[in-house]
């Protein structure tokens, strides 16, 4: 069995190591698929659903997240179809309405083409992407953080709300959190949240936003504002 497979993403033939995810393969080639909960090297959970793509198999299309989808030989992926772009934009709109105080999320919303936020803002300080939970467990084998509760009551918590002895105070959870960088104009007050939409003029932000956006032309495919400039 060959170690590499060849697949098609948005019409481009892409070679990727067997076992890697479609999202990693796409990013490697500079094909921009927005994502939030994915962190290279950590187990994908498919929670934010921003990286959804269409997989065409036997003439049928199925929507799934590219972070959890393993590459296969002759796979056909369409990452930026109209259906996907619309759903993705809506998800980004939901996210920014949940947590307007994150520059990363505001940035993602802009890049997904959100023009206005139709939902009332909620001022959450966590979007439950689970990056912190996984890095704590998988990188540091610490399991100091976990999810508790179900549905709207779901939260990230320390065991019994106390810092356990096995927490190494490494701060990895804070470094990786998409909520730690506030919008450029500073934190928004409750009740005064807005969709800033300014990040298109702040290209340097690419380093700070929690993904590996390469500011590419291919981003045009999903209506990326940066690419259009």
């Amino acid at each position, binding site marked *: 069995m060959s170690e590499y497979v060849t697949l098609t993403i948005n019409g481009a033939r892409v070679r990727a190591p067997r076992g890697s995810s479609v999202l990693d393969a796409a990013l490697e080639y500079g094909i921009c698929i927005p994502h939030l909960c994915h962190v290279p090297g950590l187990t*994908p959970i498919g929670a934010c659903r921003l990286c959804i793509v269409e997989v065409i198999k036997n003439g049928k299309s199925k929507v799934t997240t590219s972070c959890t989808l393993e590459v296969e030989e002759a796979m056909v992926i369409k990452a930026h179809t109209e259906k996907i772009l619309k759903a993705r934009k*809506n*998800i980004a709109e939901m*996210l920014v309405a949940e947590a307007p105080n994150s520059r990363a999320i505001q940035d993602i919303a802009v890049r997904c083409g959100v023009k206005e936020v139709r*939902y009332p803002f909620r001022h959450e300080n966590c979007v439950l992407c689970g990056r912190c939970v996984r890095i704590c467990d998988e990188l540091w084998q610490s399991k100091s953080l976990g999810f508790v509760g179900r*549905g709207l009551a*779901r939260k990230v918590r320390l065991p019994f709300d106390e810092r356990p002895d096995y927490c190494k105070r490494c701060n990895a959870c804070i470094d990786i959190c998409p909520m730690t960088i506030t919008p450029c104009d500073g934190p928004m007050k409750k009740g005064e949240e807005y969709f800033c939409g300014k990040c298109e003029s702040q290209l340097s932000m690419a380093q700070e936003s929690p993904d590996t956006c390469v500011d590419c032309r291919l981003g045009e495919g999903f209506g990326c504002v940066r690419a259009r400039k």
Partner: protein
Amino acid sequence: MSVAITIEALKKQAEEQKKEENKYGKIVTLCAGTGCSASGCLSVLASLRKELKNKKLTKKVKIRTTGCHGFCEQGPLMVIEPGNTFYCHIKPEDIPEIVSETLQNDKIVERLLYTDPASGKRISREKDIPFYKAQERVVLGQNKLVDPCDISDYIANGGYSALIKVLTSMKADEVIKEIKESGLRGRGGGGFSTGKKWEFCRRAEGASKYVICNADEGDPGAYMDRSVLEGNPHAIIEGMLIGAYAIGAEHGYIYVRNEYPLAVKHSKLAVQQAEEIGLLGKNVLGTDFSFDIKLARGGGAFVCGESTALMASLEGKVGEPRPKDIHTTEKGFMDLPTNLNNVETWANVPSIINKGASWFTAKGTAKSKGTKIFALTGKIRNTGLVEVPMGTSLRKIIYDIGGGSATGKRIKAVQTGGPSGGCLPEELFDLPVDFEALTEAGSMVGSGGMVVMDETTCMVDMAKYFLKFLVDESCGKCVPCRVGLSRMLEIIKDITEGRGTEEKLELLKDTAETVSIASLCALGKTAPNPVLSTIKYFRSEYDAHIKEKRCPAGVCRELIHYSIDKEKCKGCGACFKACPHGAIIKKEKTYKIDDAKCQKCGICKEACKFEAVVVK
């Protein structure tokens, strides 16, 4: 022990059991399912036992306490054989009369018979009752033949003969071929070909394999899996044994909700009894095939009915779904190949093996074969479990079997498939009930819930109810389901409380679409169905809420107004006494409602005998 002897022994036991049964002159079959237990069948049973003992009839009359017969509306109920006499709404006081008249003198107690509401005639035989007559009870019909707590009863009725057939004369591939040819599709709602699933699991590589019975039924108003597991647990064990043999699995789990105490008790007992006589465990019936079943109790999370969440829960993890890009037939429970089927699917397996695939394909439509059990509830006369061939029209189920509206008001819609199904209007009642037809119409077969609604149901309120249920039951892992559904609930609340706008309705539709496309598991993917289908078929009700700020069904509290019609009011004061909020004031000879105090609870409307309380 050689193979032949053990299997022979089982067959012999079955024959002896049958002979034993023939010694009794009369057999009284008393339903002791959950529905009848709730309406008091246990005291009826105690009274019957006492009476038979007093009259020294215990050797002549056999009492068989069985699982649900389906006609829950009429419980407690019993069938007396020979004669097929059917008594309903039995009270413990009726027992002496039944014993002296029917059991001793073969006379019928007229007043306990079922009265057909259409013709007004009393019907004495169970098979003549329209509710049963229009059905084809392949799976459910077995319930009244067996005592779920007694394995020998099941064996006497031909139980485990399919297992014997498979173990002695069929290869694993032949079993899979038979199931594939039968066209059996997953009865839990997915509708995936059972044979194909087994084949995938058989082909998958793994150190060991698992089969799981999904009995985590959680839809509001649906209880068929519960009734089958309570009434005939051995059929499920036999089905699982056959499946395990075909797939090459060695271990099995029955994942049952802890809220179903009787199902837990009966399946536990059934597994124990099967183990005792060597039907489960090492070397089943002396063959090389080994299989064991463990019982796992679910904690009551709706999402754990989803296969990957169920497996996570079985592993002791939080019951959350995971993406199914790799199927559970390859990597399921403990990352091993796992085949999960619903209770009803498993219960169909033994009959298919015994009677052959062609028997099964003879029923149903081109793509959906066999029969399906539905839980008929809501504003319908005959509430209960019905089993019909796939392709039966909704009209037949609602009017011929269900007996039409219970209130006399026009039936306007039926909600099929539980909280993730859709609402179908009366114009579509001629639709055949099969997987494709219902999905195309924007609903689904789902696990088989059917909630019937009449004119007093507000469709927007109904969509809100199901949405609220799903918001509570969403695991919260993925954004579209957790955030999307709560946003949808927010909007629909606005609509029912008079703050709705056209833009909000558009946003509701957009959000619903995103949730159905992008959610992680089937809970989220199907969750917008109630909203989308009501917008599609009952747009006028949404428009009335949004544009006219009016609830046509008179349900949404913020949009309705109670008043007393002066002409009709006789001044009896019934409403005045009934009102818990002190909102009714005496005015001259009649009464008046104080709007500031009125909580719109509707108690005054129920209390008024002259229909003088008006809701607008």
